[in-house]
């Protein structure tokens, strides 16, 4: 389309618009045309939408401008509700007829078979996930105030944990933590020393350096927030996380 054509179309459009506007004004006294029939609407919902066999659900519907409303072929009020107890998954149909046409709405109630009582627990325990095994076998180790030396029991526990970590090929994050009493920045440094102490023992017991990552949380992630020695001791720890 070239420029002059488009300009002409714009001019024509403006003219047409002006004619419509002025035309409307002139026809003010003419009788209005009969209104078009109002559209028919229909909604249907189920609550709940899934039940167990033997339970019931409520269907709720509403319509507008309908003269003839039927739920699954049975004539019903234009708006209403009804309780149903299907034995299997069922789709309900609402049909609303009016001067402007017919509208349909559907809702489904899905039915699960009735839960049977669980049998007596199996004698064999369920399989243990790696996360569960890790949590059971690689436990927190604790430190004295302002110390980063591992106590003998912690060294022993870590030596055992090292065997499992090697066997499983796990990657482990060692998280050093401090109690609330020291200074924020120095506690980050102290937490690094605590994490590194555990890393050294695990490495001495054969875990590869690339399977171990350290981080210090200083006093930023306490697991206990009271101000007493019990709580402080709980926070002076290395925590271990299995990296996935």
């Amino acid at each position, binding site marked *: 389309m070239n420029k002059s054509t488009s300009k002409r179309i714009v001019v024509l459009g403006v003219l047409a618009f002006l004619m419509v506007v002025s035309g409307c004004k002139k026809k003010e006294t003419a009788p209005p045309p009969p209104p078009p029939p109002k559209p028919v609407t229909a909604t249907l919902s189920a609550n709940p939408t899934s039940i167990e066999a033997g339970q019931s659900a409520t269907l709720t519907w509403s319509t507008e401008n309908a003269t003839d409303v039927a739920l699954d072929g049975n004539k019903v009020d234009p708006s209403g509700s009804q309780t149903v107890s299907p034995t299997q998954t069922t789709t309900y149909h609402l049909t609303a007829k009016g001067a402007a046409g017919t509208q349909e709405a559907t809702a489904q109630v899905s039915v699960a078979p009735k839960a049977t009582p669980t049998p007596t627990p199996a004698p064999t325990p369920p399989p243990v996930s790696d996360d569960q095994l890790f949590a059971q076998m690689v436990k927190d180790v604790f430190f004295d105030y302002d110390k980063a030396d591992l106590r003998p029991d912690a060294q022993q526990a870590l030596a055992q944990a090292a065997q499992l970590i090697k066997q499983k090929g796990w990657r482990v994050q060692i998280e050093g933590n401090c109690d609330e009493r020291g*200074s924020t920045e120095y506690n980050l440094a102290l937490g690094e020393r605590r994490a590194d102490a555990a890393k050294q023992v695990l490495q001495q017991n054969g875990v590869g350096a690339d399977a171990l990552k350290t981080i210090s949380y200083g006093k930023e992630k306490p697991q206990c927030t009271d101000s007493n020695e019990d709580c402080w001791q709980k926070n002076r720890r290395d925590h271990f996380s299995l990296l996935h």
Partner: protein
Amino acid sequence: MAKAKTIAVTKLCFMTLTVLCGFLSAAAQDRIKIELNMGQERPRLAAPEFKAANGDPQTAPLNTVFNETLWNDLDNAGIFDMVAKSFYPSQQPGQPAELQAKAWGDPPPNAGVLTFGNVGVNSGKIDVQGWLYDVKNPGTPQILGKQYKEDATPDMARVIAHRFADEIIARLGSGIAGIAESQIYFVSTRTGNKEIWGMDYGGANQKQVTKLGSIALSPRISPDGSRLAFSGLTRDSWQIMMYSMDLERTVAFPRTAGDNFSPAWASDGTKIAFSSTMHSGLSEIFIADANGAGARRLSTGKGDVSPVFNPKTNGQIAWVSGRTGLPQIYVMDADGSNVQRMTDQGYAVSPAWSPNGLLLAFAWVRNYGPGVLGGSDIYLMDIASRQIIQLTHDGGRNDFPSWSPDGRHFVFQSNRTGNEQIWSVLADGTHLQQLTRQGRNSQPNWSFK
């Protein structure tokens, strides 16, 4: 009342430190006072309230904000002997023609200098005229005459008062610029996690800076005030992060292996020192260019952290090391040589180097040991003589001192009210003020200017 008493006691202890605390000679105390820029004779300053220049409904409330701010700035400066308002003559001038200088210069006010002026709001603008007069010099009394015009808001009334106060302080304070427009950055928990916040030096205008959503620590504003370095916890490590105050967002800064924290700026803005585990898995002090490039290791300690440059020379760094057990303050040259241990007992952390390079402030649990309930207090050390004075005495844990640009004030964190809040104090121990109250607030850092 209680506050006044605390201040009085603190002042008394400072004044009589030699007797009470017994580890500082009077000469050394004077020397430290001079190094704090507080040794001079104080001008006796009268500061009657500025007069309302007109009846605009905004004039009175903005004049109140202006007068409060100006008085606090002058009072907090620590270099004036403020004439008590009860001594003021009943006739108070709003402009030079109304001034009866003799009534101010004679007893009882006996003022040496007088500041006065007027505040008016005209069609949405606040107009301030202020003067500073030497009332003992009737021949040429005017030291300063200033006029300011800004949008008529409480914030701008405060800004004008800060600017006028800084002019007065610069004229009467041995040429050391005022601090009324300086900022303090700090860590606050008030959003639910630790983020960096900023505020005016007197505690007004507290605003959130970072929105990291994890943990942000150790804010350090750059010397020109354009960038804020801090340490932030990412998904897997601590990294030095950089926030642009101009762009109002975090900008790129290189990440390095391991954990990286406690950044510090050289006072010329060209270097950053920080603590990193990148080399050995233990934290050591590194120095890098201001954009993070060219990081090199300076210290080889076990648990080295909290570096700070000597801002006078940038040739030395003080830091904290746990290499002998409990943390102590050390100083080395900025190339890592000439390591000196500065403290010899207790638990000493958070060094802060005075702007003139002569003093170290630090937090110290001086009497530390099993079963000893030593509080952490703020101390000052004269580096040349290694003599020490104690700045806080009020118990609780006091930590992270940071110097004001004029070297006459400190800001620090204290849990003396039960939880951590930011406090400021004049370096002689007077004018103790609590600046934060909402959430827990820590690690204050005073801007360079």
